[in-house]
Each structure stands twice: as C-alpha cells, then as structure tokens.
C-alpha cells in the first residue's frame, strides 16, 4: 500500500480552498462597499450641517445645491414652506432626506 493523496482528494481540497478564498474575498468586498456608503454618509452629514447653519442665518431661503466629495446636498422649499435637505451621491443614490424645522415663509 502506498501512502499519499489521490488526485481526487487534491482536487477536492483545491475546490474547498477556492470556495473559502472566494468567501473571504466576498466578505471583504462587502465590507468595502459598506464602508464606502458610511464614508459618503459621513461626508454628506458634515456638509448638510454646514448648509443647515447657513440656511438658519439666511433671510430669504431659495432652492440650492452644494457639491461635495461624494455627491450633492440639495435643499428645496416645499409647497407648505418647509425646507427639505436631501443628500444624493453622484450615482443618484439618495443618502438621506431631512425635513427641517426651518420655514421659508
């Protein structure tokens, strides 16, 4: 009797290794995508805070847009006079929508 691995055993081991490697890579990819979203959100919040501070001082509020690293912060005056702030990525994904307590009227 000869000791060692058969070709089938080696192939099975390779497949298992491949599945594990693909799983780890997928987890890292998912972590990276989630982190990307968190970065966009953080950046949007930082810029939306600045917009909100500016709007609080403004005597007249009109619709506007602020471009930042990950997308746009857009503020609009709704029909009932409330100011709504929306953050959108360059890919068109809405990060958040905030209806503020500010009123344009």
């Amino acid at each position: 009797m000869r000791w060692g691995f058969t070709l089938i055993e080696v192939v099975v081991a390779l497949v298992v290794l491949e599945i594990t490697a693909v799983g780890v890579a997928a987890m890292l990819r998912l972590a990276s995508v989630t982190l990307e979203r968190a970065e966009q959100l953080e950046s949007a919040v930082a810029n939306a805070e600045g917009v909100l501070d500016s709007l609080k001082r403004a005597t007249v509020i009109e619709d506007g847009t602020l471009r930042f690293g990950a997308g746009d912060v857009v503020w609009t005056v709704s029909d009932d006079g409330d100011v709504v702030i929306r953050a959108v990525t360059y890919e068109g994904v809405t990060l958040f929508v905030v209806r503020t307590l500010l009123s344009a009227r």
Partner: protein
Amino acid sequence: METVVAVSLGTLVLQLGLVSVQRTRLAHTRIVERIDALGSFRLGRFVPRRELRYALAGRDWWVDADSLALRAFRGTGVVCPTDGVSSDLVVSFRGDRQPDPEKDSVLLIGANGSASVAALSAVGTVTEACGIGPATPALWRLDRPAPSQVVVARLFERGAYHLSGSALRYRRGASGRQPLTPEIWSMPATRWIESVERVAFAYVPSGAGPRRRWTGFLAWKSGR
C-alpha cells in the same frame, strides 16, 4: 507522472494560498485604515463644532495657522447668596467635569447682567449649597473678590485644538498636545479653512485620492 502532477498541484495550491493571504491582508489593512479615518473624521468634525457652538469668534475662540485656540465652556455654578464682597463663592455646580484650578477660569455674571472674569485659585468642598436638582455643592476660591450680586459663575477651560503631526490634537492649559485621533492625516492638506465669514475644515487621510478629501463647516466668525 504522479509525482510531477503532485508537485505541480502542490505548487499551484501554495501559490494561490500565498496570493490569497497577501491580498486579504492588503484589503484588510486598507479597510482598517479607512475605518480609522472615518472614526477620526467624525471626532474631528463633532468635537470642535460642539465646542464652538455657543462661543463667540474673537472673544472665545480664534484660528491661528494650525491652531484653534478657545475658552471652552465646561459648566455652570449657581452662586449662593452671600453678605458682602468675597473671593470665596459657594456654588451648586453642574458641568462636564470637576473644576481644575490649574486650567480653569470663571466668568462671573451679576444679577444686573454685568460680567467679569476671575481665575480659579482653589476648589473646596461644602456639605450643602443652594442649588436645585442634581448639582454638586462646592466652594470656589477666586484670585480676586467677586463683585456683589453675582448669581452665576460659568466655568471655562483654556485650550487649543491643533491639526499637526498628522493628527487632531488638544492642548489643555499649558500642557502638551495630546492626540485625539490616530496619526493618519496628510499635512498640510488637512487644515482649518478660514474665510472672512466662517471657519471650515478639510481632512485628508494619508495616501488617499481626491475623493477622500472630507470637508465641512465648523463655525461662523460673525455673530448670529
């Protein structure tokens, strides 16, 4: 023949394994760096904004190159009524931390709205004060007699935030600059951005591309 196949497959497996480990480690390192940068940015955005929220530019804070010097509000003491003028005040204190005579100064506000500044020389304990609610009774000794009719003593800490040495740092009083974030920021791209009207900030992690430049608003320089 079997030996050749075994050696070839073994080499392939080893190579694949090494490449996988290397790439996984690299990806993991990058993710950890980005998480560090994200957490640090949040801290660097939130803390100075909170400190300056109710402060007045020029009087309470000012920017000088990499420094953001300020008198940071740390708490309020309701002054118990006394007879006459004294440098000792019995207060009911409520604040972020306990007063420290080595670092703190006090803004004394009178019943008529007058204000004056005094340094805190010593802090003692008293068993009872006049405050209402969850406040700490304390005896504050000032470096000068407090004006009569003082009703409130606001406690301030002298300090400065610095964007230096690749980190956001805080220097309290005359002590050294202590890092608040890891040393991950690219200098001088990471800085306070000062204009006539306002102060903003830009944080750029080391080795990051243009999309990783994080900016935000800090405070207005003119009154509200």
